[in-house]
């Protein structure tokens, strides 16, 4: 009984964290793009004349989207047309369950892992769910009864499937180095030290895999350098026939994918919730200093470190989105099939060779 309660509380907390971050990522996107382009950004939404840097803008957007017409085009398959945004939303939202937010907490004689779903195939689970999100795109493009959205959906499927290969192959190197598919195990492994002073983070062991994963993940989020499936302004994309809250769900899926990609980058390459040289009982610096801390403070520091890293990567992805122009379609395919996949295969070979030599 109490176990079920604990899991329910964990699910609610993780979803609140996830959806709040998603909501405010729209604000971050507006403000960051404004700051990059020497503007101020959305600052007019106010409650009783209180503006607070436009922090109420996401709520204004949400109200606008809720009160818009729920439109289904004529001759469209109504069931599938409604199902598509929910599918793509669900498969991205469920991946948060595998993310480790922190170490195991001992509370009232119970070990509580700060992770909802501690599976030993968590990494495969996340990749599988992210791949299933393609169904939402293809369905939305097909069920709208519009040839242009169908083409957009096909572009999206082609792009996502080809980058899925590079994404999966780049992670093989990581799995070789940290021999586990459990995300919690991978994070524990990254708490160890390399040569006695360098944190054993994925970025130091697998720099090439990090670059490949970063580019493939940017393509997975379907945002600007790789936004051929949508093409908001010029080429017509897969959710052209959607409006109101259903369109909002596609938009939220995009932002949730950014957060999931940031969580994955943090967990796999930047030590997850690990703070450099912070052990279970305090800091142990390689130059011989020890700074012992109480257990609860260590846990808080680790959760804060995880959040900080995730925020940094969200910021970075917004920066990328507001820097680069869109790829041409053949360039996207060339980049994926001719560069990323051979590089990731080479990375697997090199990692295996070095591992066998060391062993």
């Amino acid at each position: 009984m109490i176990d079920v309660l604990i899991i329910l509380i964990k699910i609610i907390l993780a979803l609140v964290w996830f959806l709040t971050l998603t909501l405010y990522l729209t604000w971050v996107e507006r403000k960051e793009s404004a700051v990059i382009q020497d503007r101020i950004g959305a600052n007019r939404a106010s409650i009783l004349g209180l503006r607070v840097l436009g922090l109420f803008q996401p709520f204004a957007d949400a109200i606008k989207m809720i009160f818009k017409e729920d439109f289904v085009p004529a001759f469209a398959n109504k069931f599938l047309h409604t199902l598509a945004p929910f599918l793509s939303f669900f498969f991205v939202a469920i991946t948060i369950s595998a993310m480790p937010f922190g170490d195991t907490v001992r509370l009232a004689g119970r070990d509580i892992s700060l992770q909802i779903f501690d599976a030993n195939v968590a990494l495969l689970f996340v990749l599988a769910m992210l791949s299933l999100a393609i169904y939402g795109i293809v369905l939305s493009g097909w069920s709208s009864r519009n040839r242009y959205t169908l083409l957009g959906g096909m572009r999206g499927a082609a792009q996502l499937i080809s980058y899925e290969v590079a994404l999966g192959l780049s992670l093989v190197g990581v799995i070789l180095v940290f021999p586990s598919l459990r995300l919690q195990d991978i994070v524990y492994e990254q708490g160890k030290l390399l040569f006695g002073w360098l944190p054993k983070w994925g970025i130091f062991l697998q720099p090439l895999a990090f670059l490949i994963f970063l580019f493939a993940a940017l393509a997975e989020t379907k945002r600007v350098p790789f936004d051929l499936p949508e093409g908001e302004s010029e080429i017509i994309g897969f959710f052209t026939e959607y409006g109101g809250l259903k369109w909002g769900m596609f938009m939220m899926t995009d932002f949730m994918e950014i957060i999931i990609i940031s969580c994955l980058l943090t967990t796999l390459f930047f030590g997850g919730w690990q703070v450099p040289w912070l052990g279970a009982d305090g800091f142990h610096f390689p130059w011989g200093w020890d700074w012992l801390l109480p257990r609860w403070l260590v846990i808080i520091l680790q959760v804060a470190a995880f959040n900080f890293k995730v925020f940094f990567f969200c910021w970075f992805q917004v920066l990328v989105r507001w820097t680069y122009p869109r790829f041409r379609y053949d360039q996207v395919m060339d980049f994926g099939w001719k560069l990323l996949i051979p590089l990731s295969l080479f990375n697997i070979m090199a990692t295996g060779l070095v591992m066998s030599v060391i062993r």
Partner: protein
Amino acid sequence: MIKLLGYFFEIIRGSWITCRHFVVNMWFYTLKVLGIRTKRKGAVTIQYPEEKKEIAPRHRSLHRMMTREDGRPRCVACLLCMTVCPSECIYIEAAEDLDPEVQKYPRKFIIDLSRCCFCGFCVEACPEDAIRMDTGKIEVAAYSREDLIYDLDRLCG
């Protein structure tokens, strides 16, 4: 391969530029929040309804009709502005003036702002310097088309 490395270098350079803009602007925003006044601002935005940009002296804004000492319009109804107007938005109905120095005056002088393109030809054509576009009013939007028709009373006032 070398070409590819060149692209990679340019990609990094591009993100360096946006990153620099972000950091510099955030620095000035932070100084502003801390209450330190700096000459340079974080944004070039003019927040329009509250702050307004200074209008240049030669800016062509809403028309006005100049008046004589006794308050009558300076216009002599020569119809030059009506002739030169490219969007044909001026309508003048002339009448005989009792003063032999003036001879004609406009009974009606109507500018339809919904047609006006603010070219300023009427100002250049006027031999009496009766019509000018120097009021500095640029917010002339209205809810109905009738509100955009300016007659002699509104032009003189």
